């Protein structure tokens, strides 16, 4: 790595599914504190790339390095414990539990690590975790619904809660997989506001997004993926002006 600011380095990653070359020769460098968007048409390999980063899929060749640690071959929980959290395309939440407990669980994961047989203390004597979780919910504007079952929330609120579940762990890197997919304009806008708000905390973010409005209002850097390859890389303005990108993706609409 030549650039000392690079915190996540996807190095020469290839991923094949049988005959399909889903990712080819991906080289991606994400700098500390930046919001790095990955865009591209459907089937370009965006989700595959995210799954390779988070350890859900093993690359056919190449590796992913996070702050000097090789992520390839590690399990999702180990990758999380290194400081990487993920927001899913369809919110992955604890639907049967209350909103407050949904946020307390990741807070306990951060404090106690991957496994701890903590069964002598009552949950209500975990005042530190409790206060932290309530503050977090206050932060994302969900304190009022803390006693509700998470499964009964609206889609926008589920996403907001999932974000809170990630943020409470103070991750160094946050991965967002289409955080506004399937949301109304209103929910999309509140999510953008929330993401802008947490941007000031200096957390590095990798965001996969379809919605150009979201991408151009959040990203510092954009990589454009098409047919499993990165065809352009740069600031939003550079990418917007790139003729190859216009052709492959933006289709002249911008």
């Amino acid at each position, binding site marked *: 790595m030549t650039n000392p600011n690079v915190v996540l380095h996807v190095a020469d990653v290839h991923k094949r599914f049988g005959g399909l070359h889903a990712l080819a020769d991906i080289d991606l460098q994400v700098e500390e504190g930046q919001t790095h968007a990955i865009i591209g048409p459907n089937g370009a390999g965006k989700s595959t790339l995210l799954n390779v980063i988070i350890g859900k899929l093993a690359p056919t060749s190449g590796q992913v390095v996070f702050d000097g640690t090789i992520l390839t071959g590690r399990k999702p929980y180990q990758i999380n414990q290194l400081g990487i959290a993920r927001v899913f395309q369809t919110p992955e939440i*604890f639907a049967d539990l209350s909103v407050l407990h949904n946020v307390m669980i990741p807070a306990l994961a951060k404090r106690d690590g991957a496994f701890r047989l903590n069964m002598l203390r*009552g949950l209500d004597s975990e005042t530190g975790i409790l206060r932290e979780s309530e503050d977090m919910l206050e932060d994302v504007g969900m304190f009022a619904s803390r006693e509700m079952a998470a499964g009964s929330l609206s889609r926008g609120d589920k996403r907001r809660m999932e974000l809170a579940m990630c943020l409470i762990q103070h991750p160094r890197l946050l991965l967002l997989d289409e955080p506004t997919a399937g949301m109304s304009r209103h929910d999309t806008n509140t999510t953008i506001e929330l993401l802008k708000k947490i941007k000031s905390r200096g957390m590095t973010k990798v965001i996969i997004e379809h919605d150009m409005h979201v991408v151009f209002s959040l990203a510092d850097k954009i990589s454009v993926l098409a047919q499993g390859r990165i065809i352009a890389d740069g600031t939003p303005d550079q990418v917007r002006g790139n003729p190859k990108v216009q052709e492959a993706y933006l289709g002249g609409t911008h």
Partner: protein
Amino acid sequence: MRIMSRNDLLLFLGFTVVVLAMPIWLHPFGAAYPDLLQRFMIFGIFAVGFNILFGLTGYLSFGHAAFFGVGSYAAVWSFKLLSLDAIPAMIFAVVVSGVFALVIGFVSLRRSGIYFSILTLAFAQMSYNLAYSVLTPITNGETGLQLNLNDPRYLDTTMGIPTAGQPVPTLLGQSLGGFAGFYFCAGFLILAFFIAMRITNSPFGMMLKGIKSNQTRMNYTGFNTKPYTLAAFVISGMYAGLAGALLAVTDPLAGAERMQWTASGEVVLMTILGGAGTLVGPVIGAWLIKYFENIFSAINETILHRFFDVLPDGLDNALVAITSKFVGEGWFLTLGLVFVLIVVFLPGGIMEGVRRIAHLFDRKPKGRPGKAAPQPQPAE
């Protein structure tokens, strides 16, 4: 640091009182005799433990009777080899069944869902068949493992405790027959309930609920879910072993039929009938099933004929012919029917029914606030 919240303390105290007073309040139901009361306690413990794995963690084991049986055998061996005192037997049984659960759980938990259930079922049936065949030296096969006058009982002999007549389990020299046996078992049920309550309300318990709710999220949240599920499996296996040991204390004869799949299925029914995932539900389920098993299996055609006596002869015979299929040996038919009804109409079990009724009463006063409060309470 608070040990328990107010509500939990009330629940625990209420539970304790209900259990200890069972010989009194079960009297009108004709169920206040020690033998049945002991079974209420024993299967209550079994169900509470099973619920930790099934209700909290979401792993449906179909082989928990294996741990129950292992607990029984271990306890009887302790009576034979160590001492007639119940305490060493209980400790020995819980440890042995815990180790057994660790091994079976380690393998079975490599899979989840239906494959996990099948694996546990396979292991339990394997244990059952082994107990009848290869392991006859340990289990005494079909005859069952019993106490003998000339058992070595090394601990008792070294301490110079003589055994007079037919050997029976004791507690510090006191016999554990009748109501003494009931209170002995009741103490363990209360303890078992207390521990289950602590687990449910602890961070560990919340992790188990998280695993049941969304295991993927648990993994991406930084939890290694394997040791959590294994811990839940071993704990519930130890509960089953404890229950099995108590059965051996009250009746020191261990047979392999305790490990059969029907016994494993029964604890599943108890938990679901009462309400999986709730604290008291499984205990209530166990009590109800054991109570009605006791009643229904005792009914025979003569009793039915007497019951339908007032009806005309033809109708009487027809009704007896139909109902007799559901009683006596046919009790399992009734149980199956009730189970189907519960799963279809009340999937949360009896506890959900209670909640629905409570909700019904709860809404009325809330609908008209201010009206209930100013009403003066009648003096008593």
